[in-house]
């Protein structure tokens, strides 16, 4: 039987955000928005979902009087991402044996 694909990660924008964060120490909201070509509104919603799942930490602060949001993947998020990739590999093995 296949491992179930994590529904939190199996969404294009949330997966893109997690894939960006897996390779860096931390990234600002504007950086994620630029790299994922998403709208601020949609990205905010998806980031909130990842935060609620405990996959990322979100720090909101003020820098030079401007709001600044920084995101960082958590240990739980790294584990979930690795499990998701392993499940994907299982699917692909079956499709291309």
């Amino acid at each position: 039987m296949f491992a179930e694909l994590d529904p939190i990660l199996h969404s294009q924008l949330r997966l893109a955000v997690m894939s960006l964060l897996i390779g860096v120490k931390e990234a600002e909201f504007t950086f994620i928005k630029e790299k994922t070509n998403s709208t601020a509104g949609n990205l905010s919603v998806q980031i909130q979902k990842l935060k609620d799942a405990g996959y990322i930490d979100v720090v909101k602060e003020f820098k030079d009087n401007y709001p600044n949001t920084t995101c960082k993947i958590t240990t739980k998020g790294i584990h979930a991402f690795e499990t998701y990739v392993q499940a994907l590999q299982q699917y692909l093995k079956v499709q291309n044996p």
Partner: protein
Amino acid sequence: MENEFSPEESLRIIQSMIDKTKNNVANDAFYFLFWGWLTLIICITQYVLLVWVKYPQHYYAWGLLWVGVIYLVFKTAIKNKKQKQKVKTYVDDSMKYLWTGLGITFFILGWICALNEWKNCFSLFIMLYGVGTFVSGCFLKFKPFIIGGIIAWVIALIAATANYQNQLLLTCLALIISYIIPGYMLRYNYKNQNN
């Protein structure tokens, strides 16, 4: 439906996002070229003052190093003001810690040599250039720096048997092989990848 996408599509998203976070090596190439050229100019100036001009205070050439430090401090301050760093990578952090540590070591070593003698100082400096470029090459997964670092260590061994003025020439050679050539290769690779 946002969940209606294939495993292949998932992998494509993961791959494309990971590619977008690859380290900004153009910046690293600048630092290698800046310090490589500056130190090379200083070594050549000192060699000319020592061998041809026969100026007793030939080591004053190293004062130019402070010009480089001041230039970089201003450049970094202006850059930070203009554009905030939007992403922090582990490679950026590791490079920062490595070169800060090495920078401090260079100055302490210079001070120790100034208090004692300069006889073998250049072989020690070349050895440290080797450490910096070898480890940076491993962080950046860029072979020319790794090879440059190893060659710098070999040059350090040769320099230990050379006289002071030949040590200066060997330092120039080490800088060209371990900083300047790999620095240009890194910049060329970065430009090619982005075209």
